[in-house]
């Protein structure tokens, strides 16, 4: 009973420390929410309004028809009609346009004579992903145009040809927002928890109040639990708020069940609290704690599969990411939201998280005792 009392007393102290300072009170709730919304909009791979320029040397009904299809697409936005080939380099170099569509003077003559008519597309490769995706959009538009030409008998086919008929499952319109936003909550709540817990012991050390804690009638385990509860509380609260935001604001489907979500998030947050306290117990100053939480956070965000696929990494690094808790929660969140996975289906993400949760907190406790003697 005494233990519970002491833990509650410590926990209250931690809550007061976070909530008494208006700046720090604001920081655990305001910025995470703002960031969730801003980044939810910012993080997308879908291209809209790609600025392009046109150099049409053919100036025939056929070329204009093709260009009209491009103009009609919401992915593209015409910025300039060029009058000479020299302007192409000017437009691309200076980022005035991200791609230039060049139709040669032979275009319609070739089309009617059965020779391939060439549509030259020059893309700015400075962002190769944008370049490839934009080329993909143009490819689809031209493919459709070709099929219509054959159907309308403008040209025939002098041999067999192939056409790709593609369909995407689970996400028919290939919107990347669902994919990103469903994982975003995990990322931001990790940042909040990491900040709260990694600095908490380091601050006491730097202020000298840590010694007071040690001489107070608390056991190390109690101090540790008292320190970790506020982080868990704010972390899970934020993560659930983000989940609600994803569903009700961004319209991400929620196909799974809430207990699965809470279980996955709970394991994840406990793991992160453990890592945060571990960093905190290892550092003597807040500067070191801040540095330590960065050394953990940067790689875990970049190598989590949040923005770039894990499948693309070299084998040795893919194995390394298995130790990254963020990787597991992001995969789990995506499966719960988009595929409706239950506990059994995300078990391969869940058990590493549980294992890490069982491991990091006791390790932090051991470190804690070890360093405070």
């Amino acid at each position, binding site marked *: 009973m005494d233990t519970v009392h002491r833990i509650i007393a410590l926990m209250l102290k931690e809550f007061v420390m976070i909530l008494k300072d208006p700046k720090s009170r604001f920081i655990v709730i305001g910025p995470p929410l703002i960031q969730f919304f801003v980044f939810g909009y910012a993080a997308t791979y879908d291209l809209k309004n790609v600025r392009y320029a046109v150099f049409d040397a053919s100036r025939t009904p056929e070329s204009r028809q093709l260009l009209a299809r491009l103009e009609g697409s919401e992915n593209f936005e015409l910025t300039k009609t060029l009058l000479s080939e020299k302007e192409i380099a000017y437009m691309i170099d200076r980022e005035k346009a991200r791609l230039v569509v060049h139709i040669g003077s032979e275009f319609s003559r070739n089309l009617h004579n059965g020779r391939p008519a060439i549509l030259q597309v020059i893309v700015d490769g400075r962002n190769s992903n944008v370049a490839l995706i934009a*080329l993909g959009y143009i490819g689809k538009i031209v493919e459709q145009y070709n099929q219509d030409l054959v159907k309308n008998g403008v040209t025939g086919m002098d041999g067999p040809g192939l056409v790709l008929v*593609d369909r995407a499952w689970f996400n028919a319109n290939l919107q990347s927002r669902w994919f990103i936003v469903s994982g975003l909550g995990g990322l931001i709540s990790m940042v909040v928890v990491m900040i709260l817990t990694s600095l908490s012991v380091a601050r006491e050390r730097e202020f000298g109040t840590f010694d007071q804690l040690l001489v107070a009638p608390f056991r190390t385990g109690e101090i540790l639990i008292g320190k970790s509860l506020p982080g868990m509380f704010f972390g899970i609260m934020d993560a659930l708020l983000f989940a609600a935001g994803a569903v009700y604001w961004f319209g991400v489907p929620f196909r799974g069940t809430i207990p699965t979500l809470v279980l996955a998030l709970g394991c994840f947050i406990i793991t992160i609290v453990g890592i945060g306290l571990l960093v905190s117990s290892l550092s003597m*100053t*807040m500067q070191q704690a801040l540095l330590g939480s960065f050394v953990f956070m940067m790689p875990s965000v970049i190598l989590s599969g949040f923005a770039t696929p894990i499948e693309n990494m070299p084998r040795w690094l893919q194995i390394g990411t298995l130790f990254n808790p963020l990787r597991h929660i992001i995969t789990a969140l995506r499966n719960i939201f988009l595929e409706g996975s239950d506990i059994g289906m995300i078990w391969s993400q869940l058990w590493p998280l549980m294992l890490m949760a069982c491991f990091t907190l006791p390790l932090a406790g051991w470190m804690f005792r070890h360093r405070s003697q």
Partner: protein
Amino acid sequence: MTPQALFFMRMRGILRKEVLQILRDPSSIALAIVLPLVLLFFFGYGVTLDAENVPVAVVLDDNSLSAREVAARFELSPYFNTIHLTSMAEAMEWLNRKHVDGIVHLQDDFSTGMYKGNPAPVQMIINGIDANRARLIQGYARGVLQKWTELRQVRGEPAADPPVKISQRVWFNEAAVSRNFLVPGLITLIMTLIGILLTALVVAREWERGTMEAILVTPIRRVDLLLGKVLPYFILGMLGMGLSVMVGVTLFHVPFRGSVPVLFFLSALFMLASLGFGLLISAAIRVQFVAAQISIVAGFLPALFLSGLIFDLESTPRFIQIVSHVVPARYFVDISHTLFMAGNIWPVLLPDALALAGMAVLFIGLAFRKITKRLEG
């Protein structure tokens, strides 16, 4: 003594203090020099958008020679790892279990329909959860089909070209290697953080530990204090930057087409803006705990999401684009993309450089105003 001599004396004193402080807690040296290299090493290998060996199931309902020929093109492509399955039901099961990312399906009338004047359909079903990857896979599949046509034509077999053919040129990055744009972006991300982290706590720390009072009673003026706080960290930050660029170019073979002095000059502006931002947080907040939080919240995440490093800014809603203009990393990502891949294109570099210079002046100026020589904030 002349005022200059006095100034140098004061500067020598405060610089000596800061340098000693850095040397005694080597965590900032580790932060500025070791950390960028370690991070860049892992990120350079780990961060790429280009897929290779995408596992796909191939289902041939038509076992004719021409169908097998098409399947062979998928097998030989470096982008795909194919597995032959006998039925669509089985393939769907594999797709659901994520053993494969897609299914290539040729229906039983594939070869009979092929010569009837219409292009024969090659069906492809992709797992669309990761939309960007799915789009790239579709692009690779189109490339495979094009290769089929070209190969037949080379061998003198009949194959129809599509009426309109696209000839594409990706400037500055012919092979469209995503690492070429991600590595300069990652250098920006890493250096933003280092710049902010190095200075975010240095003034708040003095306030919290009470050592600010000791400084206040010395003849050191505000300018001296500011310079003393900026200069050592500026040098550390620039060292880290130089090393990162070297690793990017030598280890990851990212092209560098601009000139080194231009890069040096523009990185100096960027570093000053980042350091200034950190210093401003530190001077304005005076509490390390909160200063640390703000530096992460306002430094790390915006530099990742609002800089154009991974996600294209031009496709975001208008208000996001406006917000992104206050993120220094945004300008330096643009600068580094241009310098690494395109060269010294001043019409692109100059506006970015001006923005960075403006931010550096603004942040450092505000920090200067916030560093008061009074105890009450």
